[in-house]
């Protein structure tokens, strides 16, 4: 893996998250019936950060949850190595809620497809909206994000790595030359 360019630093990430928080409140006309669910692993921390920003803006606590999509992957049978199954933690009712799904990088759209299937097993939200820190293009499914931190046109040979303090010890988004097979820079 060779680092090619740094796209966002800590301040850039903070600003993007704050703007997404504002946009979520604006689109949903407040925070009534709003909940946020992050996709494991890094989406969970982004979801929490968005909730913290909403708390700062509106002084309201929005329910947040964590979703593990491993069991819903369309490539489970082909997965190289062994995917680790982690916990899904959504301890609130998602029925009739405006649910914001959060992930770090939007790429092929297959993770989001799996996440939608998983969420529907938990209930029938009024709406599901998608927030991502980075949209890097190359969609393979008809899926788009409602809230985007940064659009980054990439080549398929590159990989976008989102690093977060909670997982990686530092906040940054970088483009690297790909060596493995996984598009998102995370172990498949």
């Amino acid at each position: 893996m060779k680092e090619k360019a740094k796209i966002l630093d800590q301040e850039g990430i903070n600003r993007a998250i704050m703007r997404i928080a504002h946009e979520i409140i604006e689109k949903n006309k407040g925070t009534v019936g709003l909940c946020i669910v992050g996709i494991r692993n890094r989406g969970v921390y982004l979801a929490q950060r968005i909730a913290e920003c909403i708390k700062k803006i509106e002084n309201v606590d929005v329910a947040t949850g964590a979703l593990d999509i491993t069991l819903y992957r369309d490539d489970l049978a082909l997965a190289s190595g062994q995917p680790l199954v982690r916990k899904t933690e959504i301890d609130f009712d998602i029925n009739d809620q405006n649910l914001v799904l959060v992930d770090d990088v939007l790429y092929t759209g297959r993770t989001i497809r799996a996440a939608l299937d998983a969420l529907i097993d938990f209930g029938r939200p009024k709406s599901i909206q998608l927030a991502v820190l980075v949209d890097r293009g190359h969609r393979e499914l008809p899926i788009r994000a409602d809230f985007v931190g940064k659009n980054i046109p990439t080549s398929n040979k590159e990989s976008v790595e989102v690093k977060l303090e909670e997982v990686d010890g530092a906040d940054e988004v970088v483009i690297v030359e790909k060596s493995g097979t996984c598009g998102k820079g995370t172990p498949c």
Partner: protein
Amino acid sequence: MVWTKKDLLGLEYLTQEEIEIILDTAESFKEVSTREIKKVPALRGKTAVNLFYEPSTRTRVSFEVAAKRLSADVINISTETSSVRKGETLIDTGKNIQALKADIIIMRHNCSGAANMLARALDISVVNAGDGWHEHPTQALLDMFTLKEKLGKIKGINVAIVGDISHSRVARSNIWGLTKLGANVTLCAPEILIPTGIELTGVKTSSNIDEVLKKADAVNVLRMQFERDEGTAFPEQWDYYRRFGITEERLAKAKKDIVVMHPGPINRGIEMSSEVADGANSVILEQVTNGIAVRMAVLFLVSQAREAKK
């Protein structure tokens, strides 16, 4: 560390890390059973066959529920009504099931080592649901999962296993698993029901239940398998209850939060009193619930390992 085995035959053959992978994976799967829609698509299109040469309700149903919650198709073969009655060998039965393109055989057999033999003969996964007096790995795994949930850890805890150790595959699997994870195990039974030389596995033995209970963080009470009584080895039922039965009086002298487990089915008034079975320390029904999560984890891991090898 990843799981690479296509079969689960016994805890004797697993490392500490492999046991921990199963327990950790099971923790993630436990949540699935709390949903309104208790199903995930992980094993969609896979077929699991329950092949039971011994009567069993709870283990068979638990495996069936686990497989169905993973979206696998489940076929139950009862040997009473199958070609086994016409003299078909175990390997032939297994190869026929494999030819049907099933993916996993979950087998209970009265002969120790039957699962190992079948696993060697087949490419598909074999999960041991109990073989003779040998092992019952998923029962021990769910016992350990429950202990971890209740006590926060396995390492360093004192576990007493009480009852018919000699005839118990549950005891053997628990001994392998618990000692590998660093628990202190004491077997407590009439001397005649403790196999000679069992101390070599690193466990202690005792015939004094009151002394054992004083130190125990958890007590796993085995079922007295009177159906295996050949007329000599077993104490009288009333005598066993008097000397080893877990009663409220005995429990009053134990640690206040002692965890009371039983693999079921319970003989009330023989291994333990009804008050204890239904009491505050009993986690017997939680064991049943946890059994589903553990078996889901096992079915998922063995099929993933087999896919990876293709």
